[in-house]
Each structure stands twice: as C-alpha cells, then as structure tokens.
C-alpha cells in the first residue's frame, strides 16, 4: 500500500460516512436483537415467567387445626392444648452453627437425639425457616436462655401449642398420647390433611378418635419476600378445630381405682352394665404420657421399656389371663341350660376328681374338698370338683359354644387400641393351633378357667355386665359423646347392644346370680371376710385365682416357697347393687395370690366410692 502524503479530506469524509452507516446498521440490528429477546421473554414466554413470579411471591401455608379436647363425663379436662416454649434456630442468621450448638449444650443440656433430630430437620427446609432444636423448655431453661439471649443471634424461643395431659399417669392407658408423626404414619395418613400438623394420636383414645380430634386443616396464601419473610396474607381459609370428646370415665372414680391398685401390677375395669359406659379403666403400673408428646429421650424410654413391671403394657386391654373361677357362673348356666345339672341336686365334692379309667387326680383348690354341694354352694365356695364333674358330662363342645355367647375369646370392640381377643378353647381350635385332638381332661381344666382359656380384664367386665343384666349384652365404650361445634351441646353416643344371651328358663339366671351374692355376704363366701362382710349395699361377686405355674400331681401351692412372679393371679368380678346393677367391676392383680384376699377388697373400694360417695347428679355432664 502506497503512502499518501497528503490527507484527502473529501475522500476521508466519504469513508467515514460509509463506516458510520455500517456502524448504524449494526447498532440497529443489535437493538432489534435485544427487542426480539425481550419480546420472547415478555410475550411468547410471558405465562411461564408470570407463574414463576407468582410462585416466588406467594406461598401456601397450612394452618393446622387445634386438636379437640378430651373431657371426662363431668367436664374435667383430660387432654388439653397448652402453650409450650421451644427453642428454634434460624441457621441463616447464625454465624457458626456448631459453635452455637456447643454453647447451647453448656447452657441447656441438649440430648444427642435432639441434636440429631435438629440436623435431620435442617435438610430440606426452606431458606430462613426456623428449625426447632429443643422442645418444651422448662421455666428454668427458659430463664437461663433469656438471660444469655444476646449471645445467640438467630436462636429464638417460640411459643407453640402442645398437648398436655393434666392427669398424667392416671389416664395414660386410656387416653393414650400424641407424638410426632413418624415415617410409617406418614405413609398411612393423607399428608394434605396433616399439612402443618406435627403430632398424631399414637395410642388409646387419641389414636382411636384421631379423625374426630384432628379437625380440618386450613390454608393461607401469604406474600413473601426474597428472604422468605411473610409480608401479608392474601387469602385465608381458617382451619376447622377438632371435635371435643366427652368420655364416660369419671376421673374421681379413676383416681380411687388407681389408688386401690397402688403398688400392684394389675388392672381394673368398671363399667355401667346398662349402657356399656366405661366408668374407670386402670392399668398399673403406668407412665406419664406427657413424656411422649415432646419426644421421649431414649434413655427414659429404654428405662420404661425394660422395666420388669412393664408400665407401658396396658393390662386392661392387652393383658390376657386365665380367668380362673370367675367364669364358673357361665359354666353353671351352660350346665343348667343343657340339663346336665339342676340347681338343687347335690353331689359330693371330695378333694380331687378322677376321670373314668384314669388315675390322674384333678385337685380342688381346697385340699379336702367341700363335702356335699349344690350349685349355690359350688359357686359360693368355688368348688372345683363340682364343675369338673359337670363339665365332664357337658363336654367341651357345648361348654365352648355357651361361653362364646358371652363373648369369651372375642374382642369386646371397645373404642381404644391394643385390645386382645383372649382365647376360648374348643376342639377345632386345638386341632388348628396345636394339631392335636382334645383330651377329656382339658375339658375339666377349662371349666375352672385354667388351661388354654384366656381373657382380658375388659372382657371380664363385659361378661360381668352381661351377667348383671341377665343376658343383655352391650359393647363397652369409653366415648360418652361428642361436643357440638358450639362446644355446648353433647351428642351422646348411642350404646350398641349385641345379641343377648338367652336361656330357656329365666330362673337359671337367679340360680347363678344369687350364689354370687352369697360369695360376698355369706360367711362361707370366698369374698365375705375380705370384702363383703360389712357392705351397706348388696354386691354380687365371684373370686378367681388362676395359676401362672403348673403344679405337679401331688404338689401343694405354697406362696412362701415360690418366687413372686410365679404366684397366682388374683381375680375378682362383681356388680352392685345386686338387685339393680349400676356398676360392674373386674379386677386383676398379677401374681397377687388369692382372688378373694387381694382383688375383692380392691373392687369393694371402687364400688364403695361409686355407691356411697358419688352423688348421682354429679355423674352427668352439664
């Protein structure tokens, strides 16, 4: 290229013009490109970005419904919602999380599980969402933290509503408790209904009536900013609170029953035989259900679980025991119904019984027997030999069928959790369960409520009610009614009557029920000295003592020589007043020894309180 020594202004100007035009075209083109890009974003993809913007801005928050309260029949609160203070951490606002946790541990004694749970909750949380660290702070912890609060930015105390059981251990086995929803429950429940709810009924009434107690979840749409802070509520659908339940229990009677069993392992079920309302249900020993609400520390839980006395075990519903002599009235009734015995016919009851062509001796609990006995005396004194003989003639099939009519071996269907069925042995059952034929001797053992036969205390109470009502059967239940949404009107749950037990002649009932009164009120009755002697009202009862441990052919039962856990279970069933029954009671004391000596007085205390101290008008709610 040759150098041009002189500038050619005209040519340069034309060259510049050409270049500016090129530049101008490029500029316009690039502006067009930007405009097209904006059109693409704002027109073509507008709805996509509008949605994203809306999702950014609006958050749907679940409003958990307040859980329904639980009252006893007089309106005493058994389960309530109360403010609980929990420590929450917003990690975004905390400088060094580990350091903060360490320092909090020094101040508040954090359990390892609490830290584990906190770390699990950290995953999958929204930005700036606070995560609970320690639930249910005590007043002392609250004060401790309040003083040092300035040292912990991003850590706050938050008031939440938590379930509380004011009667604590006394009702643990009835009411049950709520606890944090676990993974298994997560799979079972409708997670939408439980959005925002942290706790669910785990046991007892809390579990059985979960649907009524829980209520309907509400929602609110809130506008949030980029930090996730709520700015205002856009839309709100309030939650529907759970229904308040009124139980048929009377806490005063419950307290008396619990006290009567103090120091023992056992159960009491008291119910109104006329309508099936359970008035008291106690299983001892027991535990504090409030421990479970906030997540029980593993150490405490293991102590409870490994406790030899098994406080977590609900003996009233889940405990299955040989009913012993308490079912002799049923066997007697079966004998009468099938014409195998007559009430007035006597037999000689020696100290033992043998089957034809067999040398094995089936012993009576009284070494030398009861002498000449009729049905009345056989029940009053609880003669085993009388029933051995009768059952031999009745046979297992007829006996089993008749006991089945009372609901033996069949769950009562009470409105709670964990109920077991008990066991009614029969020929078919034994073939199925053991693959063995029925032996005649087993019929004898069954007639005195031993051997394979098992019953739960609530079953025994239900059977007692049926006896008291002369065959009228009603399903035992804990729920008296549901309060209306106004919290005033009580919608009473109708009693559910079952197929009644019918016998061909009504006097058969008198023939087994009158001896039950003699058990209590005649000097030869098995509960006369311990319980019935001075009763100002008539009681019908029956004692039972069931073996935990099989004695050899010629061995004697001797409490002194046996370890406590092999002692007999002490049982008692009864109702009062005998002429117009209003309460039916079943008492079981594990390894208590004699039913007459141990369980009958317990039942008497419960009946006394009910009959003498509870004024009838105070029994009814409002």
């Amino acid at each position, binding site marked *: 290229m040759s150098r041009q020594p002189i500038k050619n202004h005209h040519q*340069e100007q034309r060259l510049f013009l050409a*270049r500016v035009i090129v530049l101008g075209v490029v500029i316009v083109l690039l502006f067009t490109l930007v*405009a097209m*890009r*904006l059109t693409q974003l*704002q027109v073509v993809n507008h709805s996509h970005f*509008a949605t994203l913007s809306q999702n950014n801005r609006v958050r749907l928050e679940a409003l958990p419904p307040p859980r329904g309260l639980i009252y006893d029949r007089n309106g005493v609160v058994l389960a309530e919602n109360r403010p609980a203070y929990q420590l929450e951490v917003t990690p975004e606002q905390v400088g060094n999380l580990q350091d903060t946790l360490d320092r909090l541990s020094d101040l508040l004694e954090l359990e390892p599980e609490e830290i584990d749970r906190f770390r699990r909750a950290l995953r999958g949380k929204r930005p700036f969402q606070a995560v609970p660290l320690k639930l249910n702070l005590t007043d002392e912890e609250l004060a401790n933290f309040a003083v040092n609060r300035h040292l912990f930015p991003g850590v706050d105390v938050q008031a939440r509503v938590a379930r509380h059981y004011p009667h604590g251990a006394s009702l643990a086995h009835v009411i049950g408790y709520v606890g944090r929803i676990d993974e298994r429950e997560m799979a079972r429940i409708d997670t939408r209904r439980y959005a925002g709810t942290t706790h669910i009924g785990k046991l007892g009434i809390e579990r059985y009536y979960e649907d009524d107690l829980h209520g309907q979840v509400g929602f609110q749409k809130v506008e949030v900013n980029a930090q996730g802070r709520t700015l205002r509520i856009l839309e709100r659908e309030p939650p529907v609170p759970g229904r308040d339940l009124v139980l048929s229990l009377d806490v005063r009677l419950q307290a008396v029953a619990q006290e009567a069993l103090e120091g023992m392992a056992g159960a009491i079920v008291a119910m109104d035989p006329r309508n099936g309302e359970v008035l008291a249900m106690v299983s001892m020993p027991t535990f504090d259900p409030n421990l479970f609400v906030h997540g029980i520390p593993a150490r405490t839980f293991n102590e409870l679980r490994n406790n030899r006395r098994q406080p977590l075990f609900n003996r009233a519903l889940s405990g299955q025991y040989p009913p012993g002599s308490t079912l002799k009235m049923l066997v007697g009734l079966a004998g009468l119904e099938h014409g195998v015995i007559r009430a007035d016919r006597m037999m000689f009851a020696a100290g033992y019984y043998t089957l034809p062509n067999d040398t094995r001796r089936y012993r009576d609990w009284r070494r030398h027997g009861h002498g000449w006995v009729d049905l009345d005396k056989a029940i009053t004194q609880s003669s085993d030999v009388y029933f051995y003989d009768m059952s031999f003639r009745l046979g297992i099939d007829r006996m089993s069928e008749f006991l089945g009519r009372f609901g033996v071996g069949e769950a009562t269907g009470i409105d709670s959790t964990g109920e077991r069925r008990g066991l009614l042995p029969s020929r078919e059952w034994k073939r199925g369960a053991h693959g063995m034929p029925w032996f005649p001797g087993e019929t004898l053992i069954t007639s005195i409520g031993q051997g394979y036969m098992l019953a739960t205390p609530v079953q025994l109470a239900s059977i007692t009610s049926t006896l008291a009502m002369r065959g009228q059967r009603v399903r035992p239940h804990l729920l008296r009614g549901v309060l209306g949404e106004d919290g005033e009107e009580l919608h009473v749950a109708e009693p559910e009557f079952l197929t009644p037990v019918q016998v061909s002649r009504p006097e058969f009932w008198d023939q087994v029920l009158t001896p039950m009164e003699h058990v209590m009120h005649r000097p030869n009755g098995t509960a006369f000295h311990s319980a019935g002697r001075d009763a100002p009202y008539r009681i019908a009862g029956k004692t039972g003592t069931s073996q935990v441990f099989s004695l050899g052919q010629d061995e004697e039962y001797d409490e002194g020589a046996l370890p406590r856990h092999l002692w007999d279970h002490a049982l008692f069933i009864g109702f009062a007043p005998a002429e117009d029954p209003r309460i039916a009671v079943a008492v079981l004391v594990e390894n208590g020894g004699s039913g007459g000596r141990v369980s009958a007085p317990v039942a008497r205390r419960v009946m006394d309180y009910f009959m003498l101290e509870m004024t009838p008008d105070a029994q009814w709610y409002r």
Partner: protein
Amino acid sequence: MRNGTADEPGLGRAILRALHLDLLLLGGVVLLLAIGFVVLYSASGENIDTLYRQGVRVGVAFMVLLLLAQIPAHHLRQWSPWVYVFGVLLLLAVMFFGEVGKGAQRWLDLGVVRFQPSEFMKIAVPMMVAWYFADRPLPPRFLEVVIAALLVLVPAGLIARQPDLGTALLVAGSGLVIIFLAGVRWRILMALGALAMLAAPVLWHFMQDYQRRRVLTLLNPESDPLGAGYHIIQSKIAIGSGGLYGKGWLNGTQSQLEFLPERSTDFIFAVHAEEFGLMGVLLLLALYLFVIIRGLIIALRAQDTYSRLLAGSLSFTFFIYVLVNTGMVSGLLPVVGVPLPLLSYGGTSMVTLMAAFGILMSIHSHRRLLAR
C-alpha cells in the same frame, strides 16, 4: 436545523446556543434521566434519600457537561496525549497503591475524593486514538492500526486486571471503534478478527474464576439457581412476568419483594421491564437509539477528523453500555458489571457519561468557529 436564520425562534434556543448545548441530544438525555428517576423511585423501595443522592450526582455530572461543552474540540485535541498519559499513570498507581473494594482494586484515594481512573479512561482512550489518527492520511496502514490497537489494549488490559471486565470492555470498545471508523481496510479487520478468535482460549486461560463462572452461568443459569445463576433467573422472571404492558409502577413483585438483586443499579432495566412491560421497554430502547443516532449525526457533521472520530466513538460507547446491560439483564450476555446508562443508581459512570455528552455538544456547537 441549525443555520443562519436560527435567531428567530426565541430566547430558549438563544440560551442553548450561548451555553453550547444541543437541544435534541439534551432532550434525549433529560428524558432518559427523568425515566431513571421514576424507575429508581420504585426500585429503591420508594426511598426519597436515594433519589436525592442521585439528584446530587446528576447535578454534579451536569456541571461537568456544561463545562466540557464550553471547551472547543481543538483544545481537547491538544490535551489528548497528556490526558492519556496521565490516565495510564493513574491506572498504574491504582495497581500499586489502589484501594481494594468488593474484591477488586479500582479506587484511588485522593484524600478529598475517591476516584476511579478506569472511568477516566473511557474518555481518555478515545481522545488519544482520535488524536493519533487526526493528522494521518486515512485509511490507516497496518502498522498504524497495530499501534492504535496497542494504545487501546494496554489500558484496557490494566483495567481488566483490576479486575473490572465491564469497564475494560467499554474502554476497549471505545478505542477499537475508532480504528474501524478511521477506515481500516476490511482485510486487516478480518485478520484481526481471526486473531481475536484464536486469542479467545488464551483469554479464557487468563480470566479470573468468577469471570469464567459468569460465562458458564450464562450458558446454563439453572445449573446454579441459588448462586451465580440467581441473578439471571430472577431478572428473566422479572422481565418475562412484566408481559406486554407491565405490572404497573411500584407494583413489580420481583423488585418490590427483593427477589431481584442489584435492582437499583445494574439490574434496573429488569425493574423497568417488569413494571412497564414490553411497551415501556421498547419506548426506552427507542429513546436510547435516538440519543445514539443523534450522536452519530453529530459525528457526521463534525468538521475535522479528530472531532469526527471522537464523536463517533463516544456515541458508540454509549451504545455498548446499553447493549451490554440489556443483553446481560435479559440473559443474552454474561453478567458483567455495566450499568444502564443514565438510569442506574451510582455516581461514577454518571459523570463520565455526561462528560461524553458535553464533548459531543462542544463538537457540535463549536463547528463554525473552525476555519474550513
């Protein structure tokens, strides 16, 4: 428009002429500034203090504009090499004594004011390159092109090292466009283009980590939605959700609820787009185009090579500002820190921009004083 009979229209025009101002350019700039205040009020969360501080800056910048409009272009031309050398020395000073802020060394503390020499270079570099070509016959020879390119790339490189990619880009653009306007032959241009393409991987090698990340984020913003991609994603949501007519002034949820980062500075365009929609955006772009084209017309009408090249460069730099910012905010270009001229909150670029407009007005209004 401007001729001997222009005395008639009256006082307004007489004042403009006396102050050496150009009505059309000034009108465009003032309109853009006005829109800026409207959008900034919304973007700042209706903060009057912010508007007040911006007002002070605009006032100062306007003084600079007025001052420069009074200086005839031939004076500027004479000062050009000295201004340039001074600027480069300042850059070196920053490199050795500068203050560190936000991970970059950009500031020079002069006691009274803190000063960003890289801003200064946005004017000094085009002045120098225009000066270099002013007396030489055009189109330039290859060697001249190389020397001019070095004059541009040395300070641009120093600025990129600070690191300040946005300003480096603007400085490089403002200088290189002069080489183009000077009439460099297409063959040389293509050769340089090819060289630049080859240099890209080398450049990649020398980039800072955060700069590379920005480029990668542009290619796939969703790869890091809460980190580097957050800006782009939220900005696109803001723009896209604005739709055709926008959500209305003060009603942009993306900006009002703070989802949009840097909303009163680099991302103010997204606020505008969200609240005023495509219509508002096109109007804004049209206004920018008007100012740019007015600047190019001034360049075409300029009477000597130096003024022509300088005016063309300053107009084009203004265009780069708009293009890079809108491209970045709408996800077409990587996130480089370039404000939206005249709208973004902040003082440093405002003064430089207004200084450039002052020079443009001076070039336009002092024409007749030059002998042909």
